[in-house]
């Protein structure tokens, strides 16, 4: 994929905004993205909206303008943003539209996601206290630490970095730096993960404006090109969230599959990536996703993170905007936040958190229930 460019980005700050619905925040993001691209709503030929909690995204046309444009709604768990972006990009690649917008927003209640399941009789899974994504994160990193020698100090350093980066990001929710010791000393929520190692469901909105790459310079001096946008579901034998049973045999999860597909589509490899945004629903996820996305071998994260390789000035800066840990996770907006941050980094507009040395290639990755992943590769 090289025929699609991102020419506008807009965001409503993540966190908690009293008095504003999720959709209100999506509308703010859309207007900011239009302003960034120097366009009006009437210039948009195709729209895609993503939200887990709703309301139905296309209803926002009553406020943005009743221009009659086609507007597709997407719900795809944590891959909602990635799928919304891919859908809009496909509309451009197919020739259906020259200019499209992708809008993601959400507003979740406080605390861990409330997950009720099951059509067959009573909800035994949630009833038993097993329907918590937080447990999966604890269990996956427990096994990973056992297999590959990752320390709790490394888990805490991931969170310390996230809050330090978040403190440099005016759009982030958690902007107070926390030390490694403060992270380790916070409440133990799901062994071995403490409170400050977890992100929280939150609120926010993000919008991106895409166009046919051949026309990008008509709109902006600094287009960013979407080289790959891939979404994958799990295969048999992978270890996934909210699974009452797992196979005895082991296969790679959807992250590794989506990542391989994305590198192939973009014609680059992990060593070409200059800045990466990886799903960090908790510290352990960022550690494991480094290897699952091809950035290191399993177990190498321990030395890399202890040496500061993933810091903004390091060899491979990861989650430069503070990631989910500092921004929270409004599901419909979260994947698009990663793309928005990548565009800022590639434009050189990331302010205090700008990765030095003019990054050329950016990478984004989300993972979520019930075993899905979406990856994008972006270049200047």
């Amino acid at each position, binding site marked *: 994929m090289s025929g699609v460019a991102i020419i506008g980005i807009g965001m409503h700050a993540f966190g908690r905004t009293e008095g504003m619905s999720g959709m209100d925040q999506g509308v703010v993001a859309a207007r900011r993205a239009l302003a960034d691209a120097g366009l009006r709503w009437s210039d948009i030929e195709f729209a895609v909206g993503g939200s887990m909690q709703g309301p139905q995204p296309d209803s926002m046309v009553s406020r943005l303008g009743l221009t009659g444009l086609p507007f597709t709604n997407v719900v795809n768990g944590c891959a909602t943003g990635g799928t919304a972006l891919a859908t809009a990009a496909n509309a451009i690649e197919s020739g259906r539209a020259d200019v499209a917008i992708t809008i993601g927003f959400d507003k979740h209640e406080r605390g861990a996601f409330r997950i009720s399941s099951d059509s067959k009789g009573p909800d035994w899974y949630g009833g038993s*206290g097993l329907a918590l994504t937080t*447990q999966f994160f604890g269990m996956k990193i427990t*096994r990973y630490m056992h297999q590959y020698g990752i320390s709790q100090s490394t888990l805490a350093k991931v969170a310390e970095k996230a809050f330090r980066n978040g403190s440099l990001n005016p759009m982030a929710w958690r902007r107070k730096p926390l030390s490694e010791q403060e992270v380790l000393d916070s409440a133990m929520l799901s062994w071995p993960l403490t409170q400050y190692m977890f992100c929280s469901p939150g609120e926010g909105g993000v919008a991106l404006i895409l166009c046919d790459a051949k026309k990008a310079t008509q709109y902006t001096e600094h287009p960013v090109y979407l080289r790959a946008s891939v979404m994958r579901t799990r295969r048999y034998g992978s270890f996934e969230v909210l699974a009452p049973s*797992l196979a005895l045999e082991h296969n790679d999860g959807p992250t590794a599959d989506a990542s391989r597909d994305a590198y192939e589509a973009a014609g680059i490899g992990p060593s070409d990536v200059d800045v990466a945004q990886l799903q960090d629903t908790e510290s352990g996820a960022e550690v494991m996703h480094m290897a699952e996305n091809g950035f290191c071998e399993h177990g190498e994260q321990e030395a890399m993170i202890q040496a500061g390789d993933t810091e903004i000035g390091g060899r491979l800066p990861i989650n430069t905007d503070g990631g989910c840990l500092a921004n929270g996770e409004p599901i419909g907006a979260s994947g698009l936040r990663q793309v928005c941050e990548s565009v800022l980094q590639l434009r050189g507009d990331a302010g205090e958190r700008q990765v030095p040395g003019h990054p050329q290639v950016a990478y984004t990755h989300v993972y979520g229930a019930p075993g899905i992943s979406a990856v994008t590769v972006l270049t200047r």
Partner: protein
Amino acid sequence: MTTRVPVSEWLFRWPSDHPVLLASRCLNCGNHVFPVQDGCPRCTSDASEVVELGSRGTLWTWTVQGFPPKAPPFLGATSPEGFRPFGVGYVELPGQLKIEARLTESDPDKLEIGMEMDLVYDVIGVDEQGNEIVTYAFAPAGQEGQS
């Protein structure tokens, strides 16, 4: 005596003098899935039978649920006084599958990957009629000291 009710009729044998879990076994490829479902995720066949799973396995990974899950859907106590942390893990049942379960042990110092575990029935909480709600769980081998 308190009446006990199963959290579901189709996860395990109830009533039963010893704990037994039920699963699907694919008639085409032999793959096991818990709980019982139609359709084999391994080979895509839709022909399966209901079989009993083994009751002893090894702990594949684990965590401890340290805060009260939201109710609903959680059926256990959620008040600060009533909630007690519980272990959660995957237990590998040889030749069958890895099953996710509550663990009767919740002390991180007493849980270790690879340890032997036995199936038990355990109480989640009490329903509005005062019945104890029972589900399956795993206990460290030799420690099934309840019901």
